């Protein structure tokens, strides 16, 4: 028996099923065959009767390589992008139904129509995630009233790589559901409700225009938006070099009287931010007007405001500097 391969491991033995054969005692096969060639010789306990019935082996799944793009980014994945060449981190804040996801999708859609002045789309690590959020508004989704996917719990980022003045710029947009912002309005510390607030280069506070158009809701809406702005900016939650943009969304639902009312009250919303930040903007937008063809209004202006360099000391530029390597975006230093 020269084949080492078929030697039994310690504690096991070869046996012959032929009762006429005394292989087990002598080691010689009655038919003169090598053990490996004799169909009667098996490992002890390996006969068909004694073998337990085994489930059929599952089909072999070839090994795969994980790619990117199908889902939004986790904080560590966002960090990885930021570590390469720095990134502009945009905190998109607002209560549920304010239109945060619609705004994200519409910013992406803006580039589907072509470059925005000198700013061009140069890629996205979350392209299919943008498309998935836009899906309820697509004809192929079977829905005949444009909508966007609701954000689920947790912190995720959508990514745009933009080209401007010969430079590539990564923009990370938070995709956070409304509840943490409602908690800030109700008194939670923003650094606890949304720990990454201190890392944001730009914060957009989205105000629901439909509620401004509603006489019964408008005063409360302004009050709540003001509390959110205050919560995000007081005690250095947002860094003083950060930019805050108060964006009234769904302005297509406003009458002229509503617009006048808003213009008289919108500074009340921004006022708490002005105590802490010098870079505060007020912009009225309609991320997706209800009226066909749903062409976004003033989103270009909003994007330009996001992309303008912020007043950060040069030592802190970019926000997540490449030389610092991976630095957590979502926790406090």
């Amino acid at each position, binding site marked *: 028996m020269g084949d080492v391969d078929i030697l039994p491991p310690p504690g096991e033995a070869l046996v012959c099923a032929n009762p006429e054969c005394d292989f087990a005692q002598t080691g010689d096969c009655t038919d003169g065959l090598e053990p490996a060639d004799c169909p009667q010789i098996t490992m002890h306990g390996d006969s068909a009767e004694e073998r337990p019935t085994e489930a059929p082996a599952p089909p072999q799944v*070839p*090994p*795969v*390589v*994980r*790619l*990117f*793009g*199908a*889902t939004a980014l986790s904080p560590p994945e966002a960090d990885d992008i930021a570590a390469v060449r720095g990134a502009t981190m945009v905190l998109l804040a607002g209560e549920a139904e304010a239109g945060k996801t619609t705004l994200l*999708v*519409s910013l992406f*859609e803006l*580039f*589907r*129509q*072509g*470059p925005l002045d000198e700013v*061009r*789309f*140069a*890629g*996205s690590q979350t*392209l*299919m995630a943008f*498309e*998935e959020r*836009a*899906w*309820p*508004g*697509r*004809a*192929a*989704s*079977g*829905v*005949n*009233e*444009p909508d966007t996917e609701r954000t689920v719990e947790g912190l995720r980022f959508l990514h745009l790589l933009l*080209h401007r003045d010969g430079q*590539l710029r990564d923009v990370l947009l938070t995709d956070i559901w409304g509840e943490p912002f409602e908690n800030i309005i109700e008194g939670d510390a923003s650094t606890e409700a949304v720990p990454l607030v201190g890392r944001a280069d730009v914060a957009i506070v989205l105000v629901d225009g439909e509620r401004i158009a509603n006489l019964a809701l408008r005063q409360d809406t302004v009050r709540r938006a003001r509390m959110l702005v205050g919560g995000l900016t007081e005690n250095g939650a947002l860094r003083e070099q950060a930019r805050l943009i108060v964006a009234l969304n769904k302005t297509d639902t406003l009458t002229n009287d509503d617009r006048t009312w808003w213009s008289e009250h919108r500074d009340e919303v921004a006022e708490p931010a002005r105590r802490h930040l010098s870079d505060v903007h007020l912009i009225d937008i309609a991320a*997706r007007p209800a009226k*066909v*063809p*749903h*062409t976004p209004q003033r989103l270009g202006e909003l994007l330009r405001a996001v992309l303008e360099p912020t007043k950060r000391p040069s030592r802190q530029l970019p926000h997540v500097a490449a030389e610092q390597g991976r630095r957590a975006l979502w926790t406090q230093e």
Partner: protein
Amino acid sequence: MSDSDPTEVVLAGLPASGKTQYIAGLWLAVDGQSECRLHLANYKGDRRYLVEIGGRLAKCEDPPHTEVGESRTFDLPLQLDDDDKERRLRLIVPDLSGETWEHALEEAEWTVELDERISQASGLVVFVHSQASSGPTLGPLAASLPGDETSRDIHPFRVSGIAADSQLVQLIQLLRARRANPRIALVVSAWDLVEDDTLSPQAWLGENCKLLAQFVESRDDIHVNVWGISAQGGRFDDPEQAKRLLEADAVGRINVRDAENEIGAIEDPLLWATGWEIS
């Protein structure tokens, strides 16, 4: 890879993007007496499928339907004509049905084997059908659906339902991630269906794939060139056109336009993707 190894070019494209007809046309060109600069390097391997699709194209018949789940993989050994360097090219088609690429976009994964193929390839040829949905897709399309009632029955997200523009950008991004500085030949198939015959493939890209056009223009780490190709030369379902096509030479009726709308040859995207300098 040794000097004697052939240069590899991988062909990619989502379902119904025109890959089969291109390969059929290429097969007729390299196998026939045409002026094609590429010819078969050898007659080894199973050629039944190539013979079948080439035969059907020659007879002005549609290609055989690719069954769902039928991931046909094959490669075609080719050699450059009149070339003292004896340069050889291996065209690799990892999945003719295109489902592999669709899966990659939807699930963000592909096999290790495919990954190695891509990372080793000298060039890539990517297909898009000239009549594929180019968007815009928010609003106008949704609003144009019949019926007044608001439907809330949302079909699950699927990559096949989004604009070709986004599909292409994502596919090219994935290819780029596995292969540094790739040369990507973009083939706009069924070019005969583009109504404006003064439109160049480059201009078509700018009008129909605005996202991709910006992407390509912004990135110096990706090299993309575009062709418009009609392997059929016209519509087979139009009896008059089909008759006219049958009267013409099967290779001669293939219509190829380069980025600037100049007449080209069916092998041009492949040769460009190799990066070879060809006099």
